[in-house]
């Protein structure tokens, strides 16, 4: 069955974060700037990954992380891939929003990284890209790049692509409670063309991930896409939780 390989210290899962830090990310969402909410969510999921990797006080390197922050340019925030125990020591980086939204460049960087890593990940869980943005891309269309990425993979499955769209104008009807939300099961619920584009660039949630999300109290439906309209920090937290939902040993 696909997407059932567990993340272990010898077969860790690779998670690539592509974080939009364009100038619009300095806008407010609720009582905080969008970029601060993203940092908070990253801190939250990193702590959760540590908890899922910890046996007693021992942190097993079950996760490998890469973070690309992008605006007009792409910045390799961690200077390569870091294991979760290395990431713990360095802490969560802080971002300064500026520039445009070169989404294609970010996905291209992820594609190049995957091309270099996948040959050594035969027994590993399928990698996951978690892309977070608050606005439509500028420059080249990232769709062809994402489609190529979604054809790359390991025996456990193709690379998973998750998209988080930070905006309160995505849905026709806002989500009341993130814990009871079944997921974007109907494209007609979207009120934004770029949201529909991101939806088509999102992988279906594997059943194994759904089980892990249920442990956190979320009730996403089978077949729902990995696309999250992040209209508040609860939904952002939910979306980042999904990024760390690979089954662990």
């Amino acid at each position, binding site marked *: 069955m696909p997407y059932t390989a567990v993340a272990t210290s010898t077969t860790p899962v690779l998670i690539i974060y592509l974080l939009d830090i364009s100038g619009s990310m300095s806008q407010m969402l609720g009582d905080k700037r969008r970029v601060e909410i993203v940092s908070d969510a990253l801190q939250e999921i990193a702590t959760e990954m540590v908890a899922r990797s*910890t046996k007693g006080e021992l942190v097993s390197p079950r996760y490998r992380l890469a973070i690309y922050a992008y605006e007009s340019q792409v910045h390799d925030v961690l200077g390569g891939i870091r294991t979760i125990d290395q990431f713990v*020591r360095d802490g969560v980086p802080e971002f300064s929003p500026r520039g445009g939204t070169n989404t294609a460049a970010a996905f291209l960087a992820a594609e190049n990284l995957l091309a270099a890593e996948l040959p050594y990940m035969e027994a590993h869980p399928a990698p996951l890209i978690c892309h977070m943005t608050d606005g439509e891309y500028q420059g080249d269309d990232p769709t062809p790049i994402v489609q190529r990425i979604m054809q790359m993979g390991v025996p456990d499955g193709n690379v998973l692509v998750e998209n988080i769209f930070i905006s309160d104008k995505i849905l026709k009807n806002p989500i009341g409670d993130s814990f009871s939300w079944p997921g974007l099961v109907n494209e007609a619920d979207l009120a934004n063309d770029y949201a529909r584009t991101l939806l088509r660039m999102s992988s279906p949630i594997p059943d194994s991930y759904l089980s892990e999300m249920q442990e956190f109290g979320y009730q996403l439906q089978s077949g729902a896409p990995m696309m999250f309209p992040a209209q508040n920090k609860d939904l952002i937290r939910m979306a980042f939780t999904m990024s760390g939902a690979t089954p662990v040993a």
Partner: protein
Amino acid sequence: MLPIVTLNQDSDTPARREIAPCVMLTYLYDRSRDSKKSGAPGQDFIAFSYDHSRVAFAVCDGVSQSFYGDLAARFLGEKLVAWLMAHTAPVGGDFADQLDRVLRAWTGEASQLVQARQPAADLPPMIREALERKRENGSESMFVAGLLDLSGEQLVVCWMGDMRLWLWDSHTRPVDLPGAVWLTKERWSTRIGPKNGVPRTAILNLDDVARLTIHTDGVGNRAQELRSITRERLDQLARELGAAPASDDVSILDIVVDSVDVPPLDAPEPYVPDMDEPVIRWQAVDGAQWYRVEMIAAVDGRQWTADTTSTSFILPPGQPEPTDCRVQALSSDHRPSVWSDSIRVGRELVMPVLETGAPAMPTAAEAEPIVNAYRPFRTDVILVGALLLALALTVGWMLIYVR
């Protein structure tokens, strides 16, 4: 009280056979590769106790996603064996209700242990944060436990979780275990007791059962190999499982309902070589392959054991003082020796009652060096010298000027 044998969680125990009066036990405890590499304890736990006709046992698998799963595994294992061993008559139909009650009742004491457990001070903040989150939900463990009563001709077993219990007849054919459902989500929690399910129980007639094998899920898909075991094959299995990518703790306890008539080993004669150090020693016993040290804390009576192949034993750090210790010699081809005489390790505090009702100050029963406030001798000499000089100068001045 009969000793409860508890295998070390901080080290690995190779496959050993222990000849009890009524059964033969074979057991192995092997930590995951990650735990061995970092010197961390395993989160499995094995405990058992026996007399001339009964054996109580518990094998626990601490939930690594919980707060220090080894804590719940050990606590629960010790409690279950003591509780089961206290059943001196065959259990009845209310066993499941009794079990559910005690599993809930133990949460108070267990929760105190969870609150008292402090992570290492030098951990990075993110790890401390993750551990504090885990502490809110407590420590959790799965378990398989039971009481084998030859005089009552009864086998009682109970379990929660995805460990495994296999029953075999005298021809090594599997014996059906009624109600055998193994679910990962079911476990015991220090916070709420039985979690995600009710404890499962079965009471069987011992006529059908010649052997039982319990193991944790670290054995994985190699469980079929436990149908026929030798110590060498168990050690080989542990080595192979330890080399696998998803290496997990491996615990195996096998009980054969039969015994052999072999002589016991001689008992060791432990002594304390240095009253200032928490160490006991003894001379090697002919034929002994390992030794068991029983420790009973004089303060609260808590008892547990640790096995060693050495002829000396250092009491673990933090061990309450004083501790009463006994030693037993064991081997796979002799009955265990009787326990040695008990010796006391550590200093005893005496609390005198003052008539004034003022808070009592603890004093050591044996004289500890007490450092009183005093000035060094040299300083006293200097001051006396200075005073004498001043006196001499004063007298001299008076003699010169008064004349």
